[in-house]
């Protein structure tokens, strides 16, 4: 069942891909016999054939994922999106502390240890990457004014 649903979704996407390949993509001037549209057309044909075969004869049945696991997976995805959303506004250190603490606690670490892990990875990660390896990580839009004022104060 899961196979069929997944194949059906992919089929819709592939059909969209094929429609674009057959109608929209055109070079204003033909440079080579195939042009930019032939290759996507071939690919869409192969993909549609494969998908129809899977729809016709799916092999595995279910996903074998219990409701609890679904819940945890969704929570992890939400956390990841939240982490991505807050990455720049909060800055690396704070967002990593939050993310590391919550996810490790959710996965079964003791609360205090989870906090320790989050703080350690946030602070140590920042120091290691920015100071030692000279990489570019967000310091956080919230803190930028703070940094600027302190720098002005120094100069």
């Amino acid at each position, binding site marked *: 069942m899961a196979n069929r649903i997944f194949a059906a979704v992919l089929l819709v996407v592939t059909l969209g891909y094929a429609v674009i390949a057959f109608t929209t993509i055109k070079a204003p001037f033909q440079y*080579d016999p195939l042009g930019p549209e032939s290759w996507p057309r071939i690919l869409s044909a192969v993909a549609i054939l494969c998908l129809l075969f899977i729809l016709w004869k799916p092999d595995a049945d279910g996903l074998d994922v219990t409701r609890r696991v679904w819940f945890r997976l969704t929570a992890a995805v939400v956390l990841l999106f939240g982490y991505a959303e807050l990455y720049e506004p909060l800055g690396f250190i704070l967002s990593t502390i939050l993310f590391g603490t919550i996810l490790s606690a959710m996965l079964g670490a003791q609360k205090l240890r989870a906090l320790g892990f989050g703080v350690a990875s946030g602070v140590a990660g920042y120091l290691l990457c920015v100071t030692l390896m000279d990489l570019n990580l*967000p310091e956080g839009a919230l803190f930028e004014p703070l940094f600027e004022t302190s720098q002005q104060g120094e100069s």
Partner: protein
Amino acid sequence: MDTVLSGLATGFAVALDPFNLMLVLVGCFFGTLIGALPGLGPINGVAILLPIAYSLGFPPESALILLAGIYYGAEYGGRISSILLNVPGDAGAVMTTLDGNPLARAGQAGRALSLSAVASFVGGTFAVILMSLFAPALAGFAVTFGPADYVALMVFAFASLASLVGKSTVKTLLGATIGLMMATIGIDANTGVPRYTFGIPDILAGIDFLIVVVGLFGMAELLTLVEHQARGTLKSLPVDKSFVRMADLAATKWTILRSSLIGFFIGILPGTGASVASAVAYGTEKRISDKDGTFGHGDVRGLAAPEAANNAAAGGAMVPMLTLGIPGSGTTAILLGALLMFNIQPGPMMFAQRPEVAWGLVASMYIGNVALLIINLPLVGLFARMLTIPQHYLTPLIAILAFIGIYTIVGNPHDLFMITGLGIFGWFLRKLDFSLAPVILGFVLGGLFEDNLRRALSISGGDWSILVAHWKSVLLYGLALLVVILPAWLGRRARAQARREAAAR
């Protein structure tokens, strides 16, 4: 022979540079660490660390040496969790659990670990030696390939991929096609026509390779780890003081040699990496030497065979990647993408144009092998302790590393959403028994495949018969057909035989 020797001299001059030497060691160490962690294999390790290695701003040969060290080390490290936990670090280490874990349970973990380290060393070194002999010759031959031959080569690569990798041929083919389709996104280089960009400026140049790799491998792996979290904690067997004996080496020397040879040649086949090689080597060895039925109960030969084979395959997989520009496995596909990011086109010309990269990499593999043996024998206890790192710290750490890697390259938070989205897609693919290696192989080869097809047809003025006009391409199509039919035929024969035996009983 002269070219090989002078090439190796160039290579060692690069690899023995103190900085590069340090990178080999660092790469091997972290690679072993990653390989030892249950569930994290070479491909995930290289995927997660690639963006960080890229943004450190090293020269191409140094970055590549570091990545190859990680790849190599991870193939070494995979055996540690196989032996001590009975959980393979990656698909290539599955066969190692069969005889390695029983040995460890019999209180001979130290012996199993040291023997497998030696087997890995021999397999790896064997492969690098064969590689330095074969690669220049193959590259010299590949220079004569025209665009039509390249198309045939790609067809062969995808055919061997479809028939040997994954459970279902159709799913592997579909996976490769998805990868190829993803590669068509962006501006068409020949005509300047945008394809599937929907006016989004971020993807005009195509979906970034790093985003695909980190998303499909790093983030999907993370979701898999989250999914498996509830299935109980893993218990590691202790490492004891037992050590490999001369008698073990004497008993396994032919096994190791045979398996190294098998591993190397299977590794060369495009698309088939360590997992197929170790399975075939174990199967062969079992058929040849398992006279007392000790395989599967802690036979040293059953441990040495897959370990020698999977490290030899790791070396073998580098051969088509370096000489033809067609990777032999998912991980080498990632290394190929890494080369492309440094504006180096792997392929027959690389040995002539960028000898310091090609030969530096080869030389670093010689050094890496020795380094791994030295690191692994005394430090195995340390790596074994890494196994006890609770998964609930490891999982967030993967996300943090992936985010650092992706963010430091472009500094664009949208990419972070992209990798998470691709991670979800990758998790579904894995869950439904698609293997991810074909997807990444398709994605990396997509541009090359299309370019060569279009170039071939430009030469012939649109006449498709150019694709079969030359004996080289015809031979490759023949091989492609063979590689699809042969396993199916052998499988049918084995099934028929099993049925006959069942009927006789």
